[in-house]
């Protein structure tokens, strides 16, 4: 994710599913640097919920033993992109908890590259996306374990829920490992709301819209569990869900 002056094309891996027309006026996107010094802990909350296209690019560097907890609510009314490159020092701890809520013809995406540059760092990425209408939600995430970064623990948990047959989810968790003694897990699932659960709720008297809302709320909440601003994130996510249903 180096600074490319030229506008990306579909051939660029990281922009494969991007809304290039919406991206054009935003280009080039300036990288925002975040440095977490060794031993320190920082948190960050990004909420994209406006009506204009947004593209953010974060470059995060974690020193030895540093921790960084990033939560993202991507419910932008137009194209919304959060790209992130994180480089983890020895024993660093990185968390990404992100929810994307897309309706209409929105394109929302999260693109990450997490580099375990030194031993014993931990990264956890949880991404929960919901798409209805003709919308698409994308996650492209690469975990790169550098040579010598033994004891790495990297996790990517990526799930998407499609509310309509016309909605799309692209999920591509990737691993590139150049070290031994590494624990990397990735799970990726695209599905629909559980019909059995919906009928169970209906059988108790819960109308379909409320049942959907309850299930989606629970689904999205997984991305925000343990966040410093959990309440506020959930509230905003709920408002965005409400608008979608």
């Amino acid at each position, binding site marked *: 994710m180096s600074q490319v002056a030229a506008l990306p094309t579909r051939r660029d891996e990281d922009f494969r599913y991007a809304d290039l027309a919406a991206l054009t006026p935003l280009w080039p996107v300036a990288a925002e640097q975040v440095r977490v010094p060794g031993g320190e802990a920082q948190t960050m909350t990004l909420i994209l919920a406006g009506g204009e296209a947004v593209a953010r690019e974060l470059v995060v560097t974690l020193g030895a033993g540093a921790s960084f907890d990033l939560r993202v609510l991507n419910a932008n009314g137009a194209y919304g992109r959060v790209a992130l490159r994180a480089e983890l020092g020895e024993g660093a701890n990185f968390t990404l908890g992100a929810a994307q809520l897309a309706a209409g013809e929105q394109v929302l995406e999260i693109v990450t590259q997490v580099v375990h540059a030194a031993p014993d760092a931990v990264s956890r990425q949880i991404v929960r996306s919901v798409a209805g209408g003709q919308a698409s939600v994308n996650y492209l995430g690469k975990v790169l374990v550098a040579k010598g970064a033994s004891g790495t623990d990297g996790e990517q948990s990526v799930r998407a829920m499609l509310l309509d047959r016309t909605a799309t989810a692209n999920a591509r968790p990737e691993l590139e490992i150049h070290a031994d003694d590494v624990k990397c897990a990735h799970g990726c699932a695209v599905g629909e709301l559980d019909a*059995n659960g919906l009928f169970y*709720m209906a*059988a*108790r*008297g819960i109308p379909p819209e409320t049942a959907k809302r309850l*299930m989606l*709320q*629970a689904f999205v*909440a997984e991305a925000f569990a343990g966040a410093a601003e959990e309440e506020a994130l959930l509230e905003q996510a709920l408002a965005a869900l409400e608008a979608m249903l």
Partner: protein
Amino acid sequence: MLQITDLHATVADKPILKGLSLTINPGEVHAIMGPNGAGKSTLGYTLGGRPGYEVTGGTVTFAGQDLLALEPHERAAAGLFLGFQYPVEIPGVSFLQFLRESLNAQRRARGETELSGGAFLQVAKLRAGLLKMDLDMLKRPVNVGFSGGEKKRAEMVQMGILDPKLAILDETDSGLDIDALRVVGEGINTVMRQPGKAVLLITHYQRLLDYVKPDFVHVLAGGRIVRTGGPDLALELEERGYEAVAA
């Protein structure tokens, strides 16, 4: 209270119910017994309005309304409770939240006022206590990590809180040990053996009927009721098997 006349239903285009008729009056307990695959759960799901269970003939009236014209959640608000043979897990939604939504949705639909958080908790505590279930268990996500028996007890706690007119209980006794069976039986009696209420027990075994005494026992085979009798019929079934009795 419930009048089923010549009900035909298909699942995935396969005819399962083939002319089933049954009348349940207020105050009555009916038991439906029958071999595996007879269509017992299909009857419950069809009455509950589960998508995919298509009614191809017959009528069902419930509390003076055309039951089949109602959406599933409207049937619940009208006073129908379906106890599931396999209760469904809903990750991330707590039982308390789920039940409060359920009860208040039903009350709204009936034009009643909603219960406050405090008032709801009191009802929940009372009904959980009746089924010897710790209220703390209801703070957990719906059925997630519950044992088979706990799920069945939780179904009865739900029934107690929702306080239906008619409860259709699909194999509520399966997965219960002897002690839990007694607790569940007593729970059903306390909640449902009330004036103006009725129960339809779907079961394989006689043992639940020792606790919840049925007024009528029906044998369901091949998608129809092939025999009806009193409580003795259940004992006869236990002794001689479905094949001999249904023949």
